[in-house]
């Protein structure tokens, strides 16, 4: 299996603070990969670099072999990389369905985008199918702000699927979600993965990671500590050290 999205020797400094020093990661096409590490190890920063929200100070990010190191978030998404956020981000004042329609990737001229009604019939049908898939179709007309926390996580995932991205980067998808919904989420990810989607998941829930991922990368103090199967990672003493000795400052 070839690498679909990869980071090589990536570093990032904020002012004097070195958030990432040397970080390499490779996600094979069709895999579900995990990214773990103690708080402050730079997981979210890495996500931000991979999706264009931050610019890497050094190193390179590649998607399908092409560099996307300097691409904007809009561009990264258009190339087929979708992401969710650690704290769920939705358009709270838009309805659930409208949230789905924002992501529609349609290449049309500026004038048409102004004059045409948002969401063609086909797009609406597709959006409703995806809402069905995550179990939210009954709430389509509700403002997204009225959803429960777990429902928001599901909606956030569903909005990405509208544009049919090849890779999905999920930042702590289970945080604050009740066990029933976690199971539902796991199922959906497996299903999508079978359909050919590649995943990279940041997670603290070890059970979830170990159960789901084919391969896990451990970040520690801005460096990749190791990459391996869940079993290898579990067995590595360095990982345990990293977690035990991990600082409890805020996640960057």
């Amino acid at each position, binding site marked *: 299996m070839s690498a679909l999205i990869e980071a090589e020797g990536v570093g990032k400094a904020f002012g004097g603070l070195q958030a990432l020093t040397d970080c390499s990661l490779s996600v094979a096409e069709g895999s579900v990969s995990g990214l773990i590490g103690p708080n402050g190890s730079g997981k979210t920063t890495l996500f931000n670099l991979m*999706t*264009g*929200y931050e610019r890497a100070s050094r190193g390179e990010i590649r998607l399908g072999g092409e560099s996307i190191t300097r691409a*904007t*978030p*809009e561009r990264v*998404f*258009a190339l087929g990389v*979708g*992401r969710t*956020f650690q704290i769920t*981000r*939705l*358009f*709270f*004042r*838009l*309805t659930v*369905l*409208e949230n789905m*329609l*924002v*992501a*529609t*990737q*349609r290449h*049309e001229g*500026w004038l048409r*985008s*102004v*004059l*045409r*009604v*948002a*969401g063609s019939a086909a797009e*609406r049908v597709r959006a409703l199918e995806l809402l069905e898939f995550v179990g939210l179709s009954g709430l*389509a*007309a509700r*403002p997204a*702000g*009225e*959803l*429960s*926390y777990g429902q928001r996580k599901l909606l956030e995932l569903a*909005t*990405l699927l509208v*544009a049919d991205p090849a890779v999905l980067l999920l930042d702590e998808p289970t945080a604050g979600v009740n066990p029933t919904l976690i199971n539902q989420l796991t199922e959906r990810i497996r299903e999508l993965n079978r359909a050919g989607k590649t995943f990279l998941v940041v997670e603290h829930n070890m059970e979830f990671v170990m159960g789901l991922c084919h391969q896990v990368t451990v970040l520690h103090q801005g460096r990749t500590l190791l990459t391996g199967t869940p079993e290898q990672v579990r067995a590595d003493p360095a990982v345990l050290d990293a977690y035990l000795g991990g600082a409890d400052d805020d996640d960057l």
Partner: protein
Amino acid sequence: MRLRPPARALLVATAVAILGVFPLIFSSPTSTSIAVFTLIFMVAACAWNMFAGSSGYIALGHAVYFGCGAYTLTLLANHLGFAAGWGVFALVPVAGIVAGLIAVPTGLIALRARRHTFVVITIAFMFIFQLAAFNLGFTGGSSGLQPPTPLWSVDTYNLNFYYVTAVVLLATFVLTWLVRRSRFGLQLLSIRDDEERARGLGVRVARVKLSAFVLSAIPVGMVGGIYAYFLGQIFPQFAFDPLFDLSIALMAFIGGLGTLVGPLLGALVLESLQQYFTVQYGSSQAYLIIYGALFLVVVLLLPRGVIPSLEELISRARAEPPEQGPEEPGRTADTIEAVR
């Protein structure tokens, strides 16, 4: 408000009919004069809201485009030797286009910033343009400029301006309506709610914001031109007036920021009442106190603007149990179309 399409069509038809016959019924020059100014502000508030209300970027510098429209019409009319009369109205779209062109560089700079910083940059632009109008040679400086004055009779003068402005208003409203229901409009709303996430979903935010900004500047420039022509005189401090910026924002807020008809309602109520009260009671010493107090009362009783507050009342009256999201209190009943 979520009305069924037939009801909505009826409402629109009624509004257009009222717009058409108003000056024939209330034909006194006092009311038609107030009506012209009110229409001018309705256009401005509606256009402003198309950008600011939808994107959440509270611009307080649209007087730049108002003033540029005013100066464009006046300068062109004078230099191209337009005879006073209907011909000058042909320059109104030109005033809009020039305002739109000026909105491109100013928008590019201002839209790099967000929130309060954006607000202050737009204010700064307003003062820069005002000072430029004072200091540059071709603007006539502090003595201002005078467009040709039409020799229409008392009976037709206001009417002609009224109907021209009414047409601009209809066009502006149709434009905002098209934008609101379009994909572009949805992208604007997504920027208002969460710009970073919108980017992550492929929305080209810089392009969308700038387009909306420029689009909203055009009608403002057009009414700026009409205003100059109607008054027959343009001075820098009135063309580029910080109070204009504050007024259109207040109108949109009081009607309901981001709603389709709220700003129209806000401008209708605020400008006409303000002019009426000033002419009627302005010589009373307590005028300012009462005006301010009434204003306060309205804001305190309708804290979200007229349209959203009314919607809230209606939906409560329909005895729906109030549904509260875990983090976002209150029903977010924007006039956005839900699924049909």
